[in-house]
């Protein structure tokens, strides 16, 4: 029986935890869990991580980048598995994806930009000019924005729309170019949380939104290509097995990345915008919200 600590930032990540537990069960790994959730409060994470270390857990499953950072700060010895962390290298969780580091590895939640662009092209074949709305104070957002722009070169014209603070969304109509064919939203909390206000203005201009956060599709984005959190959790369970049962050195367990991102679509939005969702796309979609 192993003792596993779970450090979670918000309940938005429940699926990852559920997948992880399910994965352990599938692999026949018996474990008791100490589950701590900061309920969105980043500043609580170091204290919670300390609690897990104090109770001598065998492994910490850290959900989200801040959780992983907090756990890493507190312990250099207890193995840490993280997910979904967008870019673990740039936030210095690991040295490299291939050889992560002393006691930490996990699953990245990144979906490759070229795959997102491919979805945009399939959804909106005539789209040429794409707006990218991004929050400049969010590290992951900046990485994805750069990746996206680089991957779009020669394929699409990109119009970057930067916001420094959340309340700048209130005046989005003043800065949103009206001639874009679609608006892409990279990952990032501010944009994801306030999605409805972004959609409100995009809707007025009849601009479809391609999101990166699954719940935003339910709320009115035309579509998104996302990593399935349950699947990430399941993959982490395999990594846990390598550490706990197979006694593999963490150095030798590369950071994984989702191989099967999922297409989510919203047919109500498509109808409103007069966009046809091809039979092929509908077939490929994991979920179509009406």
């Amino acid at each position, binding site marked *: 029986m192993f003792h596993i600590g779970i450090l979670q930032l918000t309940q938005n990540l429940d*699926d990852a935890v559920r997948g992880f537990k399910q994965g352990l069960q599938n692999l026949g790994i018996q474990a008791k869990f100490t589950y701590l959730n900061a309920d969105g409060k980043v500043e609580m994470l170091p204290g919670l991580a300390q609690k897990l270390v104090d109770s001598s857990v065998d492994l910490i499953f850290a959900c989200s980048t801040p959780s992983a950072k907090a756990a890493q700060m507190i312990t250099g010895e207890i193995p840490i598995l993280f997910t979904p962390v967008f870019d673990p290298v740039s936030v210095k969780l690991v040295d490299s994806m291939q050889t992560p580091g002393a006691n930490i590895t996990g699953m990245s939640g990144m979906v490759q930009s070229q795959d997102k662009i491919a979805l945009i092209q399939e959804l909106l074949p005539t789209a040429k000019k794409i707006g990218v709305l991004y929050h400049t104070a969010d590290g992951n957002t900046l990485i994805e924005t750069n990746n996206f722009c680089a991957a779009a070169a020669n394929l699409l014209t990109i119009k970057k729309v930067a916001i420094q603070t959340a309340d700048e969304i*209130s005046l989005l*109509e003043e800065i949103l170019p009206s001639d874009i064919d679609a608006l892409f939203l990279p990952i990032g909390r501010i944009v994801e949380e306030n999605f409805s206000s972004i959609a409100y203005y995009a809707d007025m201009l009849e601009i479809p939104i391609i999101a990166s956060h699954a719940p935003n599709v339910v709320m009115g984005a035309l579509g998104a290509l996302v990593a399935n959190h349950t699947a990430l959790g399941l993959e982490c369970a395999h990594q846990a097995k390598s550490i706990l049962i197979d006694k593999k050195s963490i150095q030798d367990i590369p950071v994984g990345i989702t191989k099967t991102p999922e297409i989510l679509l919203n047919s109500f939005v498509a109808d409103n915008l007069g966009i046809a969702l091809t039979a092929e796309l509908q077939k490929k979609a994991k979920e179509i919200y009406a």
Partner: protein
Amino acid sequence: MLLTRKSVELLAPVGNWEVLEAAVKAGADAVYLGGKHFNMRMHRTDTNFDNEMLKKAIDYAHQHDVHLYITINNLLSDQEIEPMREYLQYLETIQPDALLVQDLAVLELVRELGITIPLHTSVMMNTHNEHAINKLKEYGITRIVVGREMTLSELSLFKERTGIEVEYFMHGDMCISESGQCIHSGVVFGQSGNRGRCLKPCRWAYKLIDENTGEILDADSPGPYKLALNDMCMYRNIPELIQAGVYSFKIEGRMRTAAFVEGIVKTYRQAIDTYIADPCGYTTDEAAWKNLYENRSRDFTTTFALGQPTAKDIGFSGRREPRFFSQAVKEAGLSAPIVDKINLAIKQPEKQQLAVRVADLAAVKAVCQNGANVIYIGGESFKPVKVWTLAEIKEAIHIADSYQAKIVIDTPRTTMRRECAELEQFFTALNEIKPAGIMVSNLGSLSLAKRLTNLPIQADFSFNTFNHLSAKFLKDNGAVMAVASLEASYPQVCDMLSASQLPVEVIVHGATESMICDHNLPAMSLGFNPLENPEFCDRHYALLDTAKEVHPIRIDQYGRNHILFAKDLCLLPYLAKLQGVTSYRIEAQHYTAELAGLLTKTYRGELDKIKTNSAAYQYDPAVLEAIKKISPRELGSGAYRYRISR
């Protein structure tokens, strides 16, 4: 009466199976949860229970001697009536211990289908007087979740008078608006707070300004989150709650984690059990309190339980706000709403009228002169305008008579003990004065009016009439007309108009209210004491949001604050498409007599043209320009910009 372990029910929120197990384990007496449709938490697809899981959850709860209540507490559109009928039939087979309801249509359906499950009114029904409770009891309601604006003494009294079982939100998130009476999210975003999709405009940043001068009044304020009410916490007031006669101690938070719910339930379980075992020997467990306090998300408040909230009950800084759901946006103007793209043909009623709500005698005269058929007066008067006296009402009737127009007397939206007592006297007096009718805003005043007068009674917009079955409920209970909800989109209004047996009024123009609050918002933000400076309440304040929209605040004679939308509703360009309407209504109580008169003249003219020859009718934009020129605010199309109000 002596207290036993059964005197109190501890009721926990449940969003998924893990939370269910945690709540039961922690000692909840009952849990409440939602299915996949028709409840107040519709944003997330990963919470709530599908039909099969609902059955399993009921079995699990009953095995552990725990009651399970299912929330079906949102307003329904006509398109959703049939799915609701099927859902109710399914629920009847799995027999939860109660259903929590908001829409009056559900009461109709339950009766029609012979559903045997007990019914509880959701807080969204905004039940706040004994007359409403007595009416609801006729429909099988066995328990009410009382409005959050009730003080403990008020709720004790009506519990005593009606014998109803009382459920009270005693821990968790709160609305600053009266529950079920906030339409901000629905009208602006097409995502209704009354349909489980609130985007929380009350959590936006605002500046408090003088509406007339634009001067910023709160430069020294502790922060911009003027409406960000703190979280309810009655942990230190368990004895007061129990002795007030509250039976069900309700914890808010169906999106919360298992760990969170387990912790809160355990804490309250312990306190309740300790008190019941030895009331005189009870003291607050300070260690438990410390734990609760240190793990709070927002700061704590007891809101109205122990009296009027003050500035300390608002989280001005926003520092502890767990997350935001939207940012302020510019309200939709008149360009290109969805109405243009949809053609619906509905039979026109034989008689159609133009009704105008006004603030004073000068406006009564102005609208009479310009062709109003019906004039609404009374109800709330907004400072510094004086309230209507009986003598003025007589005078208004006299004026209207000379133009063959009718006066209908409005009553306040909220009628707690004081207002109900006043209404009894008022209705009796109206029997003598004989206006053409009475307008009521809640079930209690409807019952009271029905009992005390023979005058025709209309149900106002506070009833949130969103479908033809809730209109039927109102008809069955003596109303002669209902108002279509301002949150309904054009196709949804048309669905209701074509199916309703009760004549329906549609508000086509005017300053409309997004929220009604029992808080004194300017006093809380500016720190003045209305007892020392009552004249401060006569000023016209407004909230300025980050999209630079100005939301006027109007204070009524009871001290309630009404927040208006930044743009006034104007459906003039779409009038020809609004068929099947019995009464077109202009909300002109915030306008001068001159503007009220001009609007009446304009709408009268257009309606007459449509009536004479609807096929040849062409809308002339110049008419609108004249109105725009003298309107105090910009004009907008409200929820009519949406195909479906979600």
